[in-house]
């Protein structure tokens, strides 16, 4: 009951603030921006650096800031476009043009959830933990569903240069193709090395990979 009443009051307030926002031509209401600013400051004082995870990890870049701001409201097409363009510009392709590595290493990287946690030893290679969110090789039954199934990724799209280039870009920076994707920006954020990116791309696009059987 209490929640319903509060919910009603909040809705009314939000509607009022929405009108105010439109009037001023800004994306969100000032009151909401103030709460967001307080939340960001409060987070800074609520965390402590530990292991490899320093407090700078709470400093949001423009993409993180915008995606947080619109997390529980529709993302306007213009903002989505802005985010995608900015992230598209970050994608770097290997100097030697070689986008496809060894799918067997790619499978290992896809299985591993190690890396970048304060409890992880930074000396060990990081994984991409693809199976946490995606189905890939059909032999692996323990897969998550936060992302779409990638089974037959290459086979469905064709084993072409275009598919290989798209796979590289998507793993490198998913926000370039889908603004505010749940997927980490493995290349842009320096999570995977160039060779690891090649190996994960191989898992997706190599005709011999179990993903494409």
């Amino acid at each position, binding site marked *: 009951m209490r929640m319903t009443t509060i919910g009603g009051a909040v809705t009314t307030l939000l509607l009022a603030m929405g009108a105010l926002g439109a009037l001023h031509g800004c994306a969100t209401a000032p009151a909401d921006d103030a709460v967001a600013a307080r939340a960001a400051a409060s987070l800074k004082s609520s965390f402590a650096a*530990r292991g490899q*995870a320093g407090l700078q990890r709470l400093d949001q870049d423009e993409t993180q800031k915008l995606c947080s701001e619109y997390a529980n409201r529709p993302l306007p097409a213009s903002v989505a476009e802005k985010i995608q363009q900015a992230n598209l510009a970050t994608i770097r392709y290997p100097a030697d043009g070689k986008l496809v590595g060894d799918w067997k290493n790619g499978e290992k990287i896809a299985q591993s959830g190690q890396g970048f946690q304060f409890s992880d030893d930074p000396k060990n290679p990081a994984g991409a933990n693809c199976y946490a969110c995606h189905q890939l090789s059909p032999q692996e039954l323990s897969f998550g569903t936060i992302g779409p199934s990638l089974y037959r990724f290459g086979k469905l799209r064709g084993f072409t240069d275009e598919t290989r280039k798209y796979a590289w870009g998507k793993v490198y920076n998913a926000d370039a193709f889908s603004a505010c994707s749940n997927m*980490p920006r493995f290349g842009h954020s320096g999570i995977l090395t160039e060779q690891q990116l090649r190996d994960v791309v191989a898992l997706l696009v190599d005709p011999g990979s179990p993903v494409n059987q």
Partner: protein
Amino acid sequence: MRKVAAIVIGIVAAAVGGAFAQSSTVDEIAKYREALQDGNPAELWEARGEEMWKTPRGPKHVSFASCDLGLGPGVVKGAYAALPRYFADANRVMDLETRLLYCMVNQQGISEADATKVKFGDGSARRSDFEALAAYVASQSRGVAMNVRVDEPHVHDMYQLGEKMFFFRGGTHDFSCATCHGEDGKRIRLQDLPNLTKTEGAQKAYTTWPAYRVSQGELRTFQWRLNDCFRQQRFPELVFGSEASIALTTYLAGRANGADYNGPAIKR
């Protein structure tokens, strides 16, 4: 425990053999969870916590009989279902763990450093007083409807802050709480993820903490739950009792309002 081990082996065999379809693997896990409900080791923490609650402690030799969890000194029945709440004596919103710490420091005369030496147990000799006390206090709200006073101004403020934090993306991987807990019917590997942005999901999840974690051999509190989520989010470490921990707890507990508290539960 032998029964549990046999079921675990059954699940692994099903997964490796691939003899079962995905849905039956999930069914097997549901059976495993059901079997675990038979005997919940959380009772051991509840008993230890009850003993601790009633025994004089610290330099001042005072028990928790004078500790007010919001319903009056020493009252535990139904207290957890109404936390976090605003405490005028401390002039802040507190969850159960921060309130327990407040009583340890201000009434029992224990230094904050000593009181917080073991925030989370390690599954063996290093045990946490907070985990035992939380198990006991929470158990005394079983069957009581969650009723966090989200209309109280201080609590409302924390709730709003917590909501913003829930959607805050950061770190090397761009994760927020909502990355895993913002949609219905999602899994990470085979683990079902509650959608905490929906009333039903928040109610089901929040009302089962604290919980005994089989994989860790420990009773875990909500402070631990948040701490370990942020570890996996690749954030720095969430400080025990920090404002963000209270804000997020307030947001999630508030969203669970109306549902009967049903813990301490048992989880994988």
